[in-house]
Structure formats: C-alpha cells, structure tokens
C-alpha cells in the first residue's frame, strides 16, 4: 500500500498510478468532540476515490483537513511524496488541490466566466503594475488562460451562460459552474463535497457523466464525498467508509458492499 510506484488496473481497464496523497493516522478534535479518529487512507493517481458514511461521520471534516481548512491535532498528510507542513488553505490550493463545496460557494456577484477564471489563480502570476497598464505579460496571460477556461466551459456545456452573473443561475447550473472553477485550476487532486446533493435524477446523471468524463479526459484524480450510495458505487474505484469519526471499511465498491462492519454500521440497520 505504501509503495508509491505500485498501481492497479480497474475493472474497466484504466491504469491507476502511484499514491498522490496519503493521510496517516489523522485525528481531529473540536474541543471535546472527536470528529476524526485515527484515520489513514491513500489516494492514487487517476482514481476516483469516495468517502462515504452516515451524517456526522466526519466526511466533510476529512475533506476540510485535506484542503487545509482544518488542522488535525494528530497525524500527517503526505502529498506527492513529501510530508505536508501545516499550511493555510490558499497555499494548499496553490499546490494543486481544488475543491467544490457542499453548499455552493461561488462568487455570486461575478459572472460565470469570472468565477471560472478565479480558478486560474495558480497559473496567473503577472504583477500588480503589469495588470494596471494591461500590456505585455498581463494581457498575454489573460488571453492564454481565457483560452484554457473556455475549453472547460465548452466541456461542461455552460457556454450560453458565460456572462451571466452567478447569482441568477438555478441550483444545478451553479453546481456545474463550481465544478468548472475547480477544474480550471488543473488540479492534481479534485475534491468534490457532495456533488449531487439536492439534485434530481436527471441532474445527478448529468453530474455523474461529467465526473467520469473529467476523470477520463483529463486523467484528474478525484476524491468525493457523497450520500447517494448508488452513485458512489457506480462512480468510484475505491471507497473509504466512515462512521462516528472512525474508518470502518476501505476497498473496491464490491468489497465494501460485502464488508460486514459496513453493512452493520451503515446499510445493515435498514436491512435488519
């Protein structure tokens, strides 16, 4: 498991690479409440990794630990073969970890295009002065990155709303714009926090297709949290199951489905 060079091949024949990120014995406490207790798992290059669990299992906290918003009291985060020192969320983002949010966190006052362009912060480095006169590097950068962003916009089929202020969009489209913003960062790991929450069946299918396409087309590593078991089992290559802050299962969807602890803790209750 720890050998970074080792990979595996999925059922549908995709090659999964070595370990990109590894969580080692993470424990996160809020005062007396233990949100995450001694959890370890890894994320491999090119795979779709899911974290599932009932409400309050600590999934979102886990995602927040990965994106640097929470700092765990114990444990280590290893990223691209090196131990990650405690950093601010924006530093984590600049290392190539992009995410979406459970309760959409778009910039409501800006157009779709501007929202997606904010995803390119990592790639745009022109100084304030260059931007002020809008010549040379600043202008070149703006155009180059616009080209890339337009590709993402095409890919997610949101060309028609490019210049619409995000505040006016319906929920499903907002979710897609948020995905576009995260993708625009060309992330090495894409974190999706309940990408299908609050969607109807049709929108869920659309979103699942986009997630699979993203993984397929750009080879993006994806870690996602999801409530909808059906979706998770269809989409993901490997699944971590959490309950009350502890890890109770880890493996392929089939392994997890047959894991007695998982059935007891999560699914089993309903089947009793």
């Amino acid at each position, binding site marked *: 498991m720890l050998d970074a060079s080792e990979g595996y091949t999925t059922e549908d024949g995709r090659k999964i690479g070595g370990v990109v990120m590894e969580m080692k014995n993470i424990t996160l406490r809020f005062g007396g409440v233990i949100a995450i207790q001694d959890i370890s798992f890894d994320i491999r290059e090119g795979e779709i990794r899911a974290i599932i669990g009932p409400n309050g299992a600590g999934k*979102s906290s886990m995602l927040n630990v990965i994106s640097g*918003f929470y700092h765990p009291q114990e444990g280590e985060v290893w990223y691209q073969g090196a131990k990650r020192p405690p950093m601010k969320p924006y530093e984590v983002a600049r290392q190539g970890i992009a995410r979406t949010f459970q309760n959409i966190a778009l910039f409501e006052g800006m157009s779709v295009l501007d929202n997606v362009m904010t995803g390119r912060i990592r790639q745009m480095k022109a100084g304030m002065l260059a931007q002020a006169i809008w010549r040379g590097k600043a202008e070149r950068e703006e155009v180059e990155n616009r080209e890339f962003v337009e590709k993402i916009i095409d890919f997610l089929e949101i060309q028609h709303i490019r210049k619409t202020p995000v505040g006016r969009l319906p929920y499903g489209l907002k979710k897609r714009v948020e995905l576009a913003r995260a993708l625009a960062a060309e992330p090495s790991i894409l974190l999706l926090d309940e990408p299908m929450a609050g969607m109807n069946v049709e929108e869920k299918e659309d979103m699942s297709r986009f997630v699979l396409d993203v993984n397929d087309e750009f080879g993006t590593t994806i870690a996602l949290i999801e409530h909808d078991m059906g979706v998770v089992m269809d989409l993901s290559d490997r699944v971590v199951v959490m309950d009350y802050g502890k890890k109770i299962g880890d493996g392929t969807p089939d392994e997890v489905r047959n894991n007695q602890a998982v059935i007891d803790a999560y699914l089993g209750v309903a089947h009793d």
Partner: protein
Amino acid sequence: MPEQLVFATEVFLNGLMAGVLYALVALGFVLIFKASGIFNYAQGVMALFAALTLVGIMEGQVPFAHLINAIFGTEIHHFGWHVPGLVAIILTMVIMVALAWIVNTLIFRHLVNQEPIILFMATIGLAYFLEGFGDIMWGSDIKKLDVGLPQGINLWIDETTFNIFDYGFFIDNLDIVATVVAALLVVALVIFAQYTKQGRAMRAVADDHQAALSVGISLNFIWVMVWSVAGFVALVAGIMWGTKSGVQFSLSLIALKALPVLMLGGFTSIPGAIVGGLVIGVGEKLFEFAIGPLVGGATENWFAYVLALIFLVFRPQGLFGEKIIERV
C-alpha cells in the same frame, strides 16, 4: 497624597462620569443591534433630534417655522406658550415612538435580511436625513435646555475633598445625576430584556427572525418597540448632554464617541457597553492628562478609537461579545 495623584484621581472620577454617558449612548446601540442586527449609526442624531424636539416643545416653537417663513414670506416663530418640562418630555417620547414606527415602516422593513453593512449604511443615510429634518423643523441655532436638573459644582464633594487632600475636587452635579439616571436605566433595561414577555420576544427575534415569526411573535411590533426604546434612551442621553453643553449639532457626534465603546465591549453585550463606556471614559481622560501635554493635546479625538482598534486586532469579538466561529 502627592499632588499629581490627587489631580489624577479627580481626572479619573470625571472620566468615570463621562464614561457613564458614553455607556448610555452605547446602550441604545446594543439594544437595536441585539434585536434587529442593525447597527444604528443614527443613534447620536436621534439624541440630538430628541433634545431639539424637547426644547422646541418647551419653548413653544412653531415646527418648520423657517421653511414656512421662506415659502410664504411670513414671520412666525413661536406659539407664545411654554410647556412644563415633564409634559414636554412625555410629548417628545410620543414623537420618538412615532419616529420609531416611521423608521421601521419606511426603511427597515424593506431591508430585512440584508447584509449588516448595508443596514449600517442605511442608518448613516437616516442620520443625515434626521439631522437635516431636525434642523429644518426646529432651527439650527444653539439652544439651552433646562428641565430642572441640578447643575454646577457639587459643593459637598468640593469641601469634603478639600478637607482631606487640601484640594477640592470639581465634580458637576449634573454628572452625578447622569450617573444615577444611567445606572437606573441600565437596570431597567436589563430587567426588561430578561424578565418581561416583550423582552423575551425581543431576544427571540434577535436570534432568528423566521423562528420567532413561526411561534407567533409579531416582528413589526418588536422592531417598532425596539426603536422606541432606543428613542427613549436617545431622549435621556439628549437631555443629559443637552443640559450639559447646549443642544447643538455636536450632540450628534456622541454617536462617534459610543462606537469605540461598542467595539471594546462587544456589540451584543449590555454589560460590555457599560464596562466599555467606563474604560474609555476613564482611559481618554487619563491619557489626555498624562500624555496629552506632551503631544499637543486633544487626544480625546482619537484615543478611544485607537484603543478599540488595537484591542479588536487581538480580540475581534470585544470584551464580552460572543466568539465568532467560521465554517464552510
């Protein structure tokens, strides 16, 4: 006792009294903020408006006399009667309640659920409007306000301290009255907020508009009530400050004095407003006494703000404010 220390003690006592008045204005802020999330910049102007109205009624001024004279070319100013202080105070209170109703109906009902900063800017607009309105209604000349409060040096304190320190403290009777009134008002407000039905409803509204609505609390009633209470506090503050230094434009600037008090005390805390007021009242007087002469004086203009600013950087929620928790 060394001479400097005696002087400092006198400065301290005067600062304490000034602090009580700051606290009084700050209380008006806290009340509205707790119940509606509105940070009412117009509180100071409300005090000015209340004082103007009080003087106007007592003196029998014709409202809008200047405007009427300008439009119709008349020369009217006074009705020619005088109203006793107590009656005038009651009439002024009626006007303040009416003002509360108008402010709520015309402005803040339309701004429900807006961001606090938008509400704040709206109250700045209200302050401007009310200032112009008050001046047009009653004229902008400096007026003397006398509702029969005792004024001038307190001879008893002067004599007693003279006997002890060989130096008589100058403590104004009015300041003593103000301190007592403010203390009573604070107690009354705390009892009102904690133990009456309306007070409970007010706190419920402050917590969650919709939840309060769903258990049958009338939001409009609560808001008008809160603005009325703030109007009452403004009236009391207006009487105190107006008696002390005349009813004039600068009275509205006490709002600016109360702001750092709130930053220090926390915007949602009644005890915070009191402690903050005392700390700033004493602090600025002592600072001016000790450091002022070295840097050219008039440090009262900024001391409170800089103190509050430095304090906020280390404790953003203020002395007694609730801790701010951020989540994604």
